[in-house]
C-alpha cells in the first residue's frame, strides 16, 4: 500500500467513524463491528427468545424422572447433594424430602421425546425441538441468575445478548430497532425484571433493547403530543432539517448529518411501529393458532404473535419475558397455570414461523434462568409441594435456526439433580447461539476499560451436538 492509498483509506475509515454513530438501528455501520462479520456462514439470521422468568421446573416439563416418584418423600441422598450450596430459603431445612412430579410424561413424535402432559401443544412439535436437559448456571438467586443469563455475567454492566447481536450484525431493517423486548402483562409478577437485562451495558446505547409495551404507545415517547398532527410533525421535521442544515454549513460537523438521520428514523418509527404492532388485522385462523388470548395486546400469546410480525419485518432479536415460574410452594397449581398460559402460543409461534418459511433461519429459544430442586421446599402435604432454585441442571428447548429437531441433549442423574453427561453451561449456550448466527463468540469483542469483553466472558464452547 503506498502512502496515497493509505491516506485515502484512513480518510475513509475516519469518515466511517463519523458515520458510525449515524444510523442507530439502520444498516450495519462502523458503530458496530459488522464489517468483519459474519465470521462464517450463518444458519440463523434472527432470534426469538421466549424467556420464562423465575426458573421453570425441569422436573415437570422436559426432564422425566420416574425414580423421583418412586422415592417420593425420601431425603435427598448426600451422595447426590455432594455438599453443594443451597439457597438460604431451603438450605436450613432439617430435611430435604424428594418430590416426584405430579404430572405424567409421554413420548412424542417419531423422536419419542419425553415431554410433560402439561405442555400438549409443545409436545406436538417434539420432532422440531432440540431439548437441552443439561443446562447449568452459576447463580442461585433470581437477580444474579437472570442477569447472568441475559448478559453473561452476574453483576450488572455487561451488554445483553440482543445488544451483542445488534453490535455484531447490525439491523436488517430501516424502520425498526434491531432488538425488541416484549414483557407479558398476563404473568404473575413474582420476580422483577430489570432494564439491564436488555441494556447495552458498555456498548453504545443504540444497541440496547427497545421495550414495546401494550397499549396506545408501544414505545416510550412515540406518540406526538396532543394537537400535533402528523402533517405538523412532518413540517416540524422539515424545519429541523433546515435549521440543522444551516448549522452544518456553518460548523462542518458531520455529527449533524447523523442527527438528521436519527430524526428521520424517529419519524419513520412513528409509522412503522404502530403498523408492526397492529395485530388486530390478522385473520381469525391466526388467533385460532395462537389462542384467543392473542387478541388481547400484551399477553404472552399476543407477544408471540407480535414477535412473528417483528421478525417478518427484519428485527434481529426479539426477546419475550414471561414471569411467574418461581414455584417455591404450591408448584402443581402454579406450574399448571404457567404452562396453560404459554404452551399453545409458544408452539404456535414455531408452527407459524415454519409455515411462512421463516423457521429455518430464525432461532427460537425457550427457557428460564435456572431449574428447580428435586427436593421439596418446606413441608410436603398431600399432593402439594414446592421446589427451590436449582442451578445444577435444567432444561430449555430450541427450534429452527439450524438446530437439530427431535433431539434431546445431555443426561441428568436419576433425580434430576446433577448433570451426568454433556452439560451445557450458559456460556456454552451463548457460544452456540452466536455460532448459529455466524459469529465466533471469541471474536465478537468490545474493548472497554482496558479489557476485551465478550458475551461469553472467558469461557464457552460451541455445542456442536445441537446443530443440525
Amino acid at each position, binding site marked *: 500500500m503506498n502512502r496515497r492509498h493509505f491516506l485515502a483509506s484512513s480518510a475513509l475509515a475516519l469518515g466511517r467513524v*463519523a458515520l458510525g454513530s*449515524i444510523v442507530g438501528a439502520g444498516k450495519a455501520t462502523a458503530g458496530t463491528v459488522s464489517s468483519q462479520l459474519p465470521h462464517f456462514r450463518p444458519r440463523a439470521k434472527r432470534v426469538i427468545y421466549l424467556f420464562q422468568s423465575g426458573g421453570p421446573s425441569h422436573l415437570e416439563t422436559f426432564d422425566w424422572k420416574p425414580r423421583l416418584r418412586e422415592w417420593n418423600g425420601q431425603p435427598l441422598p448426600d451422595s447426590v447433594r455432594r455438599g453443594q450450596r443451597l*439457597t438460604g430459603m431451603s438450605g436450613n431445612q432439617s430435611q430435604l424430602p424428594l418430590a416426584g412430579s405430579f404430572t405424567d410424561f409421554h413420548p412424542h413424535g417419531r423422536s419419542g421425546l419425553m415431554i410433560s402432559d402439561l405442555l400438549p401443544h409443545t409436545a406436538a412439535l417434539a420432532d422440531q425441538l432440540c431439548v437441552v436437559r443439561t443446562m447449568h448456571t452459576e447463580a442461585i438467586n433470581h437477580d444474579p441468575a437472570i442477569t447472568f443469563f441475559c448478559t453473561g455475567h452476574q453483576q450488572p454492566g455487561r451488554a445483553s445478548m440482543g445488544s451483542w447481536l445488534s453490535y455484531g450484525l447490525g439491523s436488517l431493517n430501516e424502520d425498526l430497532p434491531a432488538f425488541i423486548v416484549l414483557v407479558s402483562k398476563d404473568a404473575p409478577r413474582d*420476580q422483577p425484571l430489570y432494564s439491564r437485562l436488555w441494556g447495552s451495558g458498555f456498548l453504545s446505547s443504540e444497541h440496547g433493547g427497545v421495550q414495546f409495551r401494550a397499549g396506545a404507545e408501544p414505545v416510550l415517547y412515540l406518540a406526538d403530543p396532543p394537537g*400535533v398532527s402528523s402533517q405538523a410533525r412532518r413540517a416540524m421535521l422539515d424545519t429541523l432539517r*433546515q*435549521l440543522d442544515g444551516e448549522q452544518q454549513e456553518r460548523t462542518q460537523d458531520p455529527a449533524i448529518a447523523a442527527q438528521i438521520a*436519527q430524526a428521520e428514523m424517529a419519524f419513520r418509527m412513528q409509522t412503522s411501529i404502530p403498523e408492526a404492532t397492529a395485530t388486530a388485522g390478522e385473520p381469525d385462523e391466526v388467533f385460532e393458532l395462537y389462542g384467543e388470548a392473542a387478541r388481547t395486546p400484551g399477553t404472552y400469546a399476543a407477544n408471540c404473535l407480535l414477535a412473528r410480525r417483528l421478525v417478518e419485518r427484519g428485527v434481529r432479536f426479539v426477546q419475550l419475558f414471561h414471569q411467574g415460574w418461581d414455584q417455591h410452594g404450591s408448584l402443581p397449581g402454579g406450574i399448571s397455570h404457567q404452562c396453560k398460559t404459554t404452551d399453545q402460543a409458544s408452539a404456535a409461534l414455531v408452527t407459524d414461523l415454519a409455515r411462512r418459511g421463516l423457521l429455518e433461519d430464525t432461532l427460537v429459544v425457550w427457557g428460564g434462568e435456572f431449574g428447580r430442586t428435586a427436593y421439596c421446599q418446606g413441608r410436603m402435604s398431600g399432593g402439594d409441594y414446592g421446589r427451590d432454585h436449582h442451578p445444577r441442571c435444567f432444561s430449555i428447548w430450541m427450534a429452527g435456526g439450524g438446530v437439530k429437531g427431535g433431539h434431546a441433549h445431555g443426561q441428568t442423574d436419576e433425580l434430576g439433580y446433577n448433570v451426568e453427561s454433556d452439560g451445557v453451561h450458559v456460556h456454552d449456550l451463548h457460544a452456540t447461539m452466536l455460532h448459529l448466527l455466524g459469529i465466533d463468540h471469541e471474536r465478537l469483542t468490545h474493548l472497554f476499560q*482496558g479489557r476485551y469483553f465478550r458475551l461469553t466472558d472467558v469461557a464457552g464452547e460451541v455445542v456442536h451436538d445441537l446443530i443440525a
Partner: protein
Amino acid sequence: MARSARRSRDEWRRLFAIAALGVGDPDRGALAPPDFQREVLPLLADRCFRCHGPDEGARKRGLRLDTAEGARALLKSGRRAIVPGDLAASEMVRRITSEDDRRVMPPADFARPLAEGERDLLLRWIEGGADYATHWAFVAPHRAPLPAVLDAGWCRDPLDRYVLARLEADALAPAPEADRSTWLRRASLALTGLPPTLEELAAFRASTAADAFERETDRLLASSAYAERMAADWLDVARFADTFGYQSDWDCNTWPWRDWLIGAFQRDLPFDEFIVEQIAGDLLPGATRDQRLATAFNRLHRQTNEGGSIDEEFRQEHLADRVSTYATAFLGLTVECARCHDHKYDPIGQADFYRLGAFFGAIDEAGTYAYSTGAIPRPVLRLPNVEQEAELARRDAVVAEATALYEQAVVAARSSSRERIAALPALLVAPPVRHEPLDGGAPGPSGSATALAGDDGPTFGDLPPFRRCDPLSVRLAVLCPDVKARATILHTSSFTIESDQQGYQLLLEEGHLAWQVLHLWPGSAAAIRTLEPFPLARFVDVVATYDGSSRGGGLRLYFDGEPVATEIVRDHLDGAATVRTLQIGHRDRDVGLAGGVVDEWMLFDRALTEIEVAELHAPGAFAASREALQAAEISPARDELAVALDANVASAFALLRAARAAQQELLESLREVMVMEASDHPRPTFVLTRGAYDQPDRSRPLAPDAAIPALLAFDPTWTHDRLGLARWTISPQNPLPARVAVNRLFALCFGRGLVDTQENFGTQGARPSHPELLDTLAVDFVESGWRVKAMLKRLVLSATFRQSSVATATQLDRDPLNRQLGRGPSIRLSAEMMRDQALLAAGLLVERLGGPSVKPWQPPGLWEEAGATGAYQPDVGADAHRRGLYTFRKRTAPPPNLVLFDAGSREQCLARRQPTQTPLQQLVVWNDPVYFEAARALAQRVASEGVELDGQLVRAFERLASRAPTVAELESLRSLHESQRRALLADPAAAALLLPPEPGSAVDPAVAALVLCCSTLLASDAVMRVR
C-alpha cells in the same frame, strides 16, 4: 522548531498517519526506534500479557514480557525472548515472524493476530535496543518546561503554550477566537450546566470591562448552579442512586450525601480533602458530622435483600464494589480484573485487590439489608435537624441526670444489703408476665415437653411490647441432642434473610449459647455468648436476662440456676429492638433445633438477679443460703438482690427508663444514612481463590498495611486503616490522583479529557494527547492546594477554550476528533443539561438547592412493569421542575428520558458517559411531556413580551441557543410558523389541545404555532449542543 516548520506538508501527513494509527511505514530503516510507552507497551499488553504478563497464575513457559528482566531472562528452553539489538538471537522475533501455526506468537487461534505493521514495530524496537520504560502514568508527574512557540501572543495561560506548541509542530493554526455569546454559553454550561439568560448575554456582550471574562467566570463559579453541576458529574462516579438496586430495589435514603457533595463543591473543598473525606472522613481527628457523612461514598453500591441470598457472597460484592469504585474514581485504574487473578496488564496483584478490600471491609456490616424490619444497614450516621439536635441534647441531659440519681440509689441500696437480706423472711420471685408450659408428647422436667423437628414448633403472638430500655428475662428448659453449628432456640423476629433478625433471641452458635438483644445483626446489637459449650443430651434450665441498658454488659445467662461465664460479642445496640412473633425451636428459612426438646417458657418483665434465678431453679435455695449470704463480707449477689428489692432504686429506675425511652424514641425517629465507621470486629481478609466468596485462601491472610505497592510504597507513618489509605492516595508521590482529577476537570470543559479514557490510566488506557500539559496541570493543581475552582477558571479563560469550534477543512481532514485542540469544544449536552436548559428557557426551572430526590413526570407504569415495587407517584408543583440531578434514580427502572441520553443506571461507577445518537432521543425531545411543556411555556413567555413574531422567534431561539438566529434560520422558523398558524386556524380543536385555553377564552393560533416552533427548536443542533 525551525526545522519542523520547514517540513513539507506531505512529510507531516505521513508522520501524522503513523503516529495516529501506530502503523509502520515500509521504509522503516529511516525511522528511529518506536516509543516504548506509546507504541510498544500497548501492543505487548494487548497481544502478549494475557500469557506473558504480570499475572503469575496465567503465565506460560515462565516468560514474562512486562519487565525488561523477564524479557531478557534465560528461559528453560535455553533461549532468551529478547536479546536487545539482536534480532537473530531473539526468540520472540522467530515466534512473531513464524509461518508455522504451532510456533507462531500470538498463537494462531488468538483473536487479534499481529498486523504486519505491528510486527514491524516490534522488530524495530528490539533492533533499537528493546528499551523498557515504566508506563507513563505510574511515574509521578513533573512540570514540563514551557515550550517555545512562534505565536506567543496567542497564549493567555501557560497551558495554551503546550497546545500551541503541538499545533505548530504539526503546522496547524489554532482557530480564531469565538464570539462572546459562544464563549458565555460554553462557559456557563461547562461550569453551571445551565445556559446564560438573555440578560446575562446582553450584559456580557455590552461589557467594556477589561476583565469581563474573569468577572463572568467568577460569577459562574460562585453560583449554586456551579456546585450542582459539579455534583451531577460526580454522582456518576459515586454510582449514587436513591434505591439499593437488585431485586426489591427499595429506597436507600442516601440523598443527604448528595447534599454534602453539593456543599463540598460550593465551598471549594480542596480536592485532596475531598478525596480524604470520602475515603476516611470518619477517621479524621475530631471528625465533624459532615466529614462522617462524606464517607457514605463507600456505601452507595448496590445491596440486596432477595430471599435466599447468602450474606457473605454479597458482603464480598460490597467490598469489591468499594475497591473498584475507589480505584476508578481516584486512581483512574480498572482493578476489577485482579479480583480473580493478578491483573493481566497493570501491576496490580490479586493480593492488592483484597488488601484494598481489607481497608474497606473493616466496618460492622451485613451482606444483605433488611426485608421486613426497615432497619437501615449499619453503620449509620443520624442526621438531626437543628430543632431535633437541641431536643436531643435536652433529652441526653435528662438521661444523664436520671443515671446519676439511679446510681446513687444503687450505691445506697448496696450499702445496706446485709441488713436487708437479714430482714427478708423469704424470697418471693415475682411471677412471669407470660408462661407457656409447652406441653407435648415428650417427657420433660415438668412432666410433658415439646419435641422439635427443626422446621416448626411453638409459635406465640401478642407478645408484650418491648423497647430496648425495658429489662426482661426469659426462662426455658432446653435439651439439645448434639452440637449445632447454628440453631434457633427462641426468637421474636420474622425471617426472610439474616438482616431481619430483631428483638431478642437465644441461638446456638458452634455449640455455644448466644443471647442477643438486637435491632440489626451485627451492626446494632447487644450480644453475649457462653465461653463453654452448651451441655448436650440433658435438660438445661436456661435463664437469660437483660437490664434495659442497651449494652452487652447488661446481658446474662444462667444454666440450672447458676451464672455461666460469657463473652461480650457485640456492644452496639442503637436502634429499636421491636418484637413480633415469638417462636421456639424454629424460624422460617433458618435452622431450627432439630431433635431438641423444650419445656416451660417464661417471660419476666425485669432482669432477674442471680439469687432469684437460683430460687426459681431450686425453690428454697435462698433460705438455704441466707446465712452464708449474711455472713459474707462482700457478696455481689447479695448486693444485687438488695438493689433489686429497693423501693428507691425502683423509682429511680422508673425515671431512668422513662428518660431513656424519650431519648431513644427521638433518636430512632431521626434520619439515618449509611456511612463508614471503624469496627471493633474487623473480619479477617484473605485472597479469594478465583474471586469466589466461599473459597478464601486461608494461607494468604491480608492486613490493610499497603495499597498498590507498584505505584507507591506505604509510608510507615500512615495508619493501617482507611485514613492511611487516604494519605497514600493523596501523597504527592502518588502518580495518579492529581492527573486523574485535572483530566476530569479538563473533560468537564472540553468534552473529553487529555486522556480520553478517564476511567483507565493503565497500560490499556489511552495515551494523553498532551502529556506535558497533563503533567504540568497536575503539578500546578497540587501546588495550588488542589483548588478546583481556580483550575476551572484557568481552563475556561484559556485561549484554547476560547477558540471557535468551527472546523476548517484541513482540521476535519487532519484532526477530525480535535485531539490536538486546534479548535474549541463541541459537546452534546448531557441528559440533565438538556432538560434543565429547556426548563430554564421556558421560565419553569425551580432552582432550589438540595433536599430529598424528586419525581418529575415519567411515563406511567414503568415501576409496576419492573415488578415488586410500588407505583411511581409523580411530584406536582415545584418538584416537577427541579434540576435533573435531583431526579429520583431507581436503579432497576431508571428515568427513561435521562437514560436514553446516556445517563446510565448508576448500578456501578461510571467515570465517563459515552454520548450516542439514537432515534429514541429525538422522540424524547419531541414528545416527552416535560419537553413539550417547556415548549409551550417558552412560546407563551415570548408571546407575552410585547414583540412582533420575528422578535418572539428570536427571543425563543436565543433563550435556548444563546445566540440570535441567522437570517436563514429565522426564515425557516417563520415559514413553519406561518404554515402551522394557518393549519391551526382551520383546526381550533388541535390548537386547543396544543395550548389548553383558559376557560371562556379562545386559543390564539399564532401562539399555538409558536409552541410548535419552540418544540422544533428543542431538537435542533444549536440547542442540543454547545459549540
